[in-house]
């Protein structure tokens, strides 16, 4: 038998440098993806909620296309199909681009719902005070609608974080790829999977806890 006895501590202390690097890469890709998804979500969500002619229809198409196809196929499209037209990205770019495009689609739906939930009379009040359309959006719709959309958008960010594990298929050295590669060398499969599960659950659970915290902190005054 080559199978060694289960020793989680030995696995972590022998490979902590690679694992830490993998975790940093996961967090880096997630941060890029989440930041991009936030910007895409606010801009396109606002465009849809305010029915801005061309952008709004484009957003509808983009959202339906992304939501109705598997993210793995989207990653394959970016990584294997685009080079056919001379568009070649490195693994890191594919990684954050894929999760950003995916998260952006879901997030623009979150923000659209949030912005549409802002009563029209609030916006009318903004216009009555002499604000232009953009100023009304920034001062009235965004602060109120953004707070309404916050919990669901954090759920999308959690999914973005979880989806970075799919970068295993393009061989980008994030946490899942790193742990699996180590276990292929040392046959410590059980330990590697335990580490993966613990790290992902810690990240996801702390983000969910953050939702609950923010929900109570940022709740609209009348909803409190």
């Amino acid at each position, binding site marked *: 038998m080559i*199978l060694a006895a289960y020793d989680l501590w030995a696995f972590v202390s022998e490979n902590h440098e690679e694992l830490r690097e993998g975790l940093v890469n996961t967090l880096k890709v997630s941060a890029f993806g989440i930041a991009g998804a936030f910007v895409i979500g606010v801009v396109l969500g606002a465009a849809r909620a305010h*029915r801005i002619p061309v952008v709004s*229809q*484009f957003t*509808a*198409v983009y959202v*339906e*296309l992304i*939501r*109705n*196809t*598997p*993210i*793995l*196929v*989207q990653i*394959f*499209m970016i990584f*294997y*199909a*685009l*080079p*056919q*037209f001379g568009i070649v990205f490195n693994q890191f770019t594919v990684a954050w681009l894929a999760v950003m495009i995916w998260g952006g689609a879901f997030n623009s739906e979150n923000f659209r719902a949030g912005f549409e939930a802002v009563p029209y009379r609030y916006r009318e009040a903004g216009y009555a005070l002499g604000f232009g359309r953009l100023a009304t959006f920034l001062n009235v719709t965004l602060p109120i609608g953004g707070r309404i959309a916050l919990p669901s958008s954090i759920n999308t960010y959690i999914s973005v974080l*979880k*989806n970075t*594990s*799919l970068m*295993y*298929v393009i061989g980008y050295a994030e946490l*899942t790829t790193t742990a*699996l590669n180590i*276990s292929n060398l040392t046959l410590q*499969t*059980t330990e590697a*999977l335990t580490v*993966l*599960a613990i790290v*992902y*659950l810690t990240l*996801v*659970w702390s983000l*969910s806890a953050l939702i609950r915290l923010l929900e109570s902190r940022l709740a609209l005054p009348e909803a409190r």
Partner: protein
Amino acid sequence: MSALFRRRWRFFVAVLLALPLAVLGVFVWRSIQNSDWAEPVWDYILTEGLPGTLKVSAAAVVGSALIGVVFGTLMTIKLLPLQALIRLYIEVFRGLPILVTVFIVYFGLPSVNRGLEFGALTAASIALILWGSAQVAEATRGAVQSIPHEQHEAASALGFGWVGRHRFVILPQSLRRLLPPFVSLLVNIVQNSTLAQVIGGLEVLEAAERQNERIAAIPPIGLGEIHAFEIFGGVLVLFFLISFPLTRLAAYLEKRLV
């Protein structure tokens, strides 16, 4: 905003939505018509790959629904250890990336016990059931708790025990409310069945990937041509054609039933 304008706007969106897909579809279709590489590729994807996807999806949906409804109903019993146990199950399998669950089932279980070795498609189905049943359990708990307390009391007054009360009175009512989440779950499971590709299970994406590699190989073996865009674009269209009607159905049911 007038109703007429809204209807026109929706029509406009529908046309715009159809347009890029139609272009992609025509592109793929023409590549099938005008070339000799395409026919065996699509033949393989549709006859070898599609059944795999459908098998995994069917098993995962049925398994998730059964286990999820039972767990969700059990969670409404006020018994702390039971509630804590199911809550842990839900939080763990909803919190893990599904890919990690797939690896745990496919690589982790056999390394703990040799008897727990599964084929790739079976392992993917099990992983999807673990994830899906957690989703369903959470939804079921909410749906069961949303049934008014009088229903429980009336059923008890008629002489039903706990099982009969839930089986004949509470669950039939909550299943109505569960229909939209079930359809969304089906969409998610069909899409996530592609994760079987990562461990080499033969479903649509794996079939496409194999064909892509075959025709890209150097001439005696393959054609030395790259058609990744047509092949994976076709897979994208295929999944869209499956998912889009289902997401529309889920949205419709949500509006009708709630």
